[in-house]
């Protein structure tokens, strides 16, 4: 197996995730797109771990999974709060940061 086939698959997932993060209005869907990007990162880590015969990459992948779980928890809580305050999970209603 070529190293690159994994890396390019990861790049594709990443690009798709970027599209989703920007294009999705619904907060839950945006978080799912973030998960896609994190999958891309993990595939890279594990692929390099196998390529270099070094277990560290897998350890980092585990850390990323943990952090991702935390991120989803907090992210969903925030979206719940937005939903409760604005009556919709749509992120483009959140424009209090407007300059």
């Amino acid at each position, binding site marked *: 197996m070529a190293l690159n086939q994994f890396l390019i698959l990861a790049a594709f997932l990443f690009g798709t995730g970027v599209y989703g*993060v*920007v294009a999705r209005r619904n907060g839950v869907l945006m978080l799912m797109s973030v998960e896609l990007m994190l999958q891309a990162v993990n595939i890279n880590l594990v692929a390099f771990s196998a390529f270099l015969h070094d277990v560290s990459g897998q350890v980092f992948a585990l850390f990323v999974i943990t952090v991702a779980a935390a991120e989803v928890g907090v992210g969903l809580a925030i979206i719940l709060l937005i939903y409760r305050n604005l009556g919709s999970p749509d*992120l*483009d209603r*959140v*424009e*209090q*940061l*407007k*300059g």
Partner: protein
Amino acid sequence: MLDLAWIIPVIPAVSFVLILLFGKRMPRGGSEIGVAALAAAFVLSCLTAYQWIQRVEDATGAHGALSAFGRGLRASTGEEVVVHPVVHGFTWFQSGGMKFQAGIQIDGLSVLLLFVVTLVSLLVHIYSTAYLAGDRRYTHYFAALSLFTTSMLTLVVAHNTLQLLVGWELVGLCSFMLIGHWWEEQPNSDAALKAFFTTRTGDIGLMIGIIVAFFAAGQTFDIVATNQAALEVAGGHTIWLVAASCLLIGIIGKSGQFPLHTWLPDAMAGPTPVSALIHAATMVVAGVYLGARVYPVFWEGFSISAGGVNAMALIGGITIIIGALLAFVQDDIKKVLAYSTISQLGYMVMGLGVGAWTAAVFHLFTHAFFKALLFLGAGSVSHSGSHHSFDMKRDMGGLRRYMPTTFWTFMIATAALCGIFPFAGFWSKDEILVTAGQGGFTFFLWVGLVGAALTAAYMTRCVYLTFFGEFRGHGEPHESPRAITVPLVVLAVFSALAGLLNAVPFGIEKFKEWVEPTFAFPHVVHPDFSYAWASVSVIAALAAIAAAVFWFVREEQLGALRGLTGRNRAAGAAYTFLENKYYLDHLYTGVVVGSIKGPIARAAYWVNQNVIDGVLNGTAYLARRAARFTYDVLDQGVVDGAVNGIAAQTGEAGGLLRSVQSGRIQRYALLLFAAVGVLSLGLYVFN
């Protein structure tokens, strides 16, 4: 205590934290912590000062000269005694092989400032307990005062310019917080912002100056090393000229010098004790302190020993005149004092510019007392006399009968400010003028004299409008509580006597002996006392007072008459009798006495009216026109216009960028990812 002086700034810092944490729960809202901390800091400062004096006297005694005879004797034996400053430091942080230090440098100058800052701050703390009693943010006010004191003390004891910069910025922040203490009212928060941004403009100069000096002195922020390098003119004259010019911009911003002085009168929006502490006695003299601290940089940079005209003296001279003229057209007593502060700071900067190091620092010392006293006196008047108003024409007048302590302390401060013998201001101002005259700066000698006369005149107007004549306000004026009068009396004692520390004709030169650096800067100019110039300056001041009394008192009586008639019509029958008495009095003097005057009296009257009055009126008219012109055109038009113009430009540029700030995080994400892509592509292509 000299080695342990770092404790002094730490005490108010601890008090700041304690007030923030526990202030609200204390029975007196945290003010007792602030007062206790400042009392401790003041005692330790006195101890430090005492030990420093011991050190100086020991050093001189070791060389066989009797210290009681002062420096004059030693100079005659040709021996120069060097008293080294006490320097302690530790490595603050390390970056790229460069160690950044923090520490203390205790010498005459810093001991002097320690004493002044802790004393005035202590008195202001005590004063504030009465002045701000019942305020919405009483606890926060005292926390901010403590933070200010600790920042100012950090600045004062700094042994390197970097630490000095830290303290400098912190006092600016505290000044911002305290000017905007009552930020609910728009003008107050505007004034706070104006003060902050205007001083920040100067701070850019200061930062560049510090960086230039850092490289010029061989990559060190150390003040002693910088001064030595400057005296050796290491790296050539030009780099020191650049450093001095940049540092001068910092001084202009902080010490309210022309053209960045406009923030200081607006800063009077803050509580009056704050104006006394920050905008009269301590923070605004930070610029002068910086000038005195790294004086060799200015000495070499501006070639002060050569005489003539240099930027520093010129800025100071312009500020003296402009500040004094502006003080004439203000009706707000605090604004009069603010412009007076600007003018007096001009004296200090000019003093440094003409080589009068000792005189400038001496003026800083005396000015701190009498100007703080004037502000606290104005605060006392508004607190108990005029219902929290500062308008002299509408709400004051005749208060000397109701507030004797405030009146007499205010008079002492006024005498000190006007330079009347033997009050404090006389000795310090005179020393600046004499040094200017003997150092080849004749032009600035005359500027200083004109400034002294103007000072005496506007202070006379201010005192007259506030304390003499009829009471024009409403309510029952009464003397202020003891927490206010006691600080006034203490400051009055200092205002009256502080000048005697350096009374040259009496053979006392203690101030010079204790404060003047003998280490790393031997070139301080010492003028001989001149009875001629001293008499000229006092006579100029007295003449100005007389002229002002003549002019303003007459104007004021007419004004009072008009005011009374206006109220008479509205008031009704109850006051008619008293009012009519006034009418009759004027009818008598104007018609009856006038008609029975003989021809000689009439001739004398004609001369009086047409010749003497004409001269007086003409002079006063010109002065007022000049002041009005300066205020309207220069101050409000040109300087403010430039500031506002820059603000408008920034606003427009912001408007263009505003469309990018959509507030939608997904837009930001889009831009972020696009930028990452472009940067990666760039790396790919160019590698």
